[in-house]
């Protein structure tokens, strides 16, 4: 039994590790750069020099993504429930309307929003604009995870409750929601991480609204002072926050609910 020393397995692992390192290189470089202080030594001073201007932006981005997650949960779960449990006319056009935003380039979506905020939804030229943009833009992610979760949920619990006389709304609140909880955590994670790091729509909205989210601030600093260490520190902070969230999720929940969305 020489399975452990199979040459092809070793080559497979080497290949997988090589690609994984390639994926990690951008993060490792910006982290490495952020550790070099302006006077050429290794230290953490880069992380403190920009703290005053940067932390409010991070806090803003965190709040925005939390609001996005809550709003998306509120609108995506009922929609996913109806799409998986009911048969009705026009299901496919409706689904395409809901997830269509995923299939258009971010820059075009952002420009269309800027135009519509100028011309139709004038009150959206504020933080409200970011909230509706993120909520609509990341709806497909939440919807997709919820649909996967609902498809996995055994329908017999709902049927049993229906036999015992529970109405549709009661079934939804007392049976479906408690059971679906763990399944939609993947949607929460992905929506949070994606909206926290959302760049292109936030970048185009930054001009009209005058609000800079943390990733846009990083990009701004890259184009003005990209060589300096504090920019690398900013980029590293955002990546470390996101990676920590992903890591904690994987530690607590594991990968099982991510299958069907970003896993295979």
């Amino acid at each position, binding site marked *: 039994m020489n399975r452990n020393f199979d040459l092809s397995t070793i080559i*497979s692992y080497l*290949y*997988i590790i090589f*690609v*994984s390192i*390639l*994926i*990690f*290189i*951008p*993060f490792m*470089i*910006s982290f*490495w*750069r952020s550790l070099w202080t302006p006077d050429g030594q290794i230290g953490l001073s880069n992380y403190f020099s920009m703290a005053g201007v940067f932390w409010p932006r991070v806090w803003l981005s965190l709040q925005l993504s939390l609001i996005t997650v809550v709003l998306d949960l509120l*609108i*995506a779960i*009922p*929609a996913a*429930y*109806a799409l998986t*449990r*009911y048969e009705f006319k026009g299901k496919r056009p409706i*689904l395409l*309307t*809901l997830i*269509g*935003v995923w299939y258009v*380039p*971010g*820059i*075009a*979506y952002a*420009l*269309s*929003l*800027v*135009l519509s905020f100028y*011309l139709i939804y004038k009150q959206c030229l504020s933080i409200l604009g970011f909230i*509706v943009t993120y909520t*609509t833009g990341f709806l497909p992610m939440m919807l*997709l995870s919820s*649909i996967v979760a609902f498809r996995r949920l055994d329908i017999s619990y709902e049927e049993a409750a229906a036999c015992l006389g529970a109405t549709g709304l009661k079934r939804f609140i007392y049976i479906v929601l408690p059971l679906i909880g763990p399944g939609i955590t993947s949607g929460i994670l992905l929506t949070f*991480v994606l909206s926290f*790091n959302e*760049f*292109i729509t936030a970048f185009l909205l930054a001009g009209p609204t005058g609000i800079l989210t943390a*990733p846009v601030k990083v990009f701004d600093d*890259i184009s003005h002072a990209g060589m300096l260490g504090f920019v*690398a520190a900013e*980029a590293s902070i*955002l*990546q470390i926050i*996101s*990676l920590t969230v992903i890591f904690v999720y*994987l530690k607590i929940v*594991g*990968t099982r609910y991510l299958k069907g969305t*970003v896993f*295979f």
Partner: protein
Amino acid sequence: MSEYFDKIKPIFFILPALTFAVLFFIIPFILLFYVSFTQGSSYFFQPIFTLENYLKIATNYIPDFRNTLMLAALSATLDVIVGYPYAYLLLRKIRFLSDFFRSILMVPLLGELYIAYGFWWLFLPKGPFSSFLEAIGISPFAILYTPVTAALALAIYTLPFAVLQMGINISQIDPVLEEASSCLGANRLRRFIHILLPLSLPGLMSGWFMAFGWNIGAYAIPYLMGGVIVGQRVLSIQIRMVGLLMMNYGLAAALASALVIISLIFTFISLKVSRGVLI
């Protein structure tokens, strides 16, 4: 009465989500197409309807389209070449730490911005890679601001999307088929060419199209990798320059509309060849 209520009940469940999608996705895009037929920023004051914007695209902006599509195609091809073995090995060979390697694929989801910055720094003077390049006699700048670097960075950004599409497809292929052909005496190469490749071709193509679709909308990576240089300018940068800096909303809307139409065509082909892997 209750039967009628049962029929419209799903609409109630969908209504909140649909409201958001219609108000902030459908209507803005209708507006985008509408504005694309007006001259300059005239829509804001007194709309002057014209086809001039599309004529301008045909005469002046074809190179930008070519740059965008070439860059996206190059990086999508890289994705497929690197990602296909990755997806296959993860499914068939890797047992130990398999979930760990799958989780790593989530890292590029953090966005193109950080990948752009990391890559940019990699090639800058005093950066980690530049001393190596100088040692072998190549100027780092000669590499940094070329489409090749941009394609490499984009390939890292869109690798997860390609791997996901191909992985879903390969996981549906029964390993028994490969074992059977191996029993019948086919070597690795023949097994790959005659069994695996034909069966996984839909996944391969949908992976390519998926990566391509994400690539054509990228902004930060082309911006930092020489995408601003006139000869290499990509559409996303051009749209922002024309729209938000030169205030020519009509032309920017026309460019964006053309980009949307291209990406919808590619999405349509992708969904056709993959038979709807992702919904």
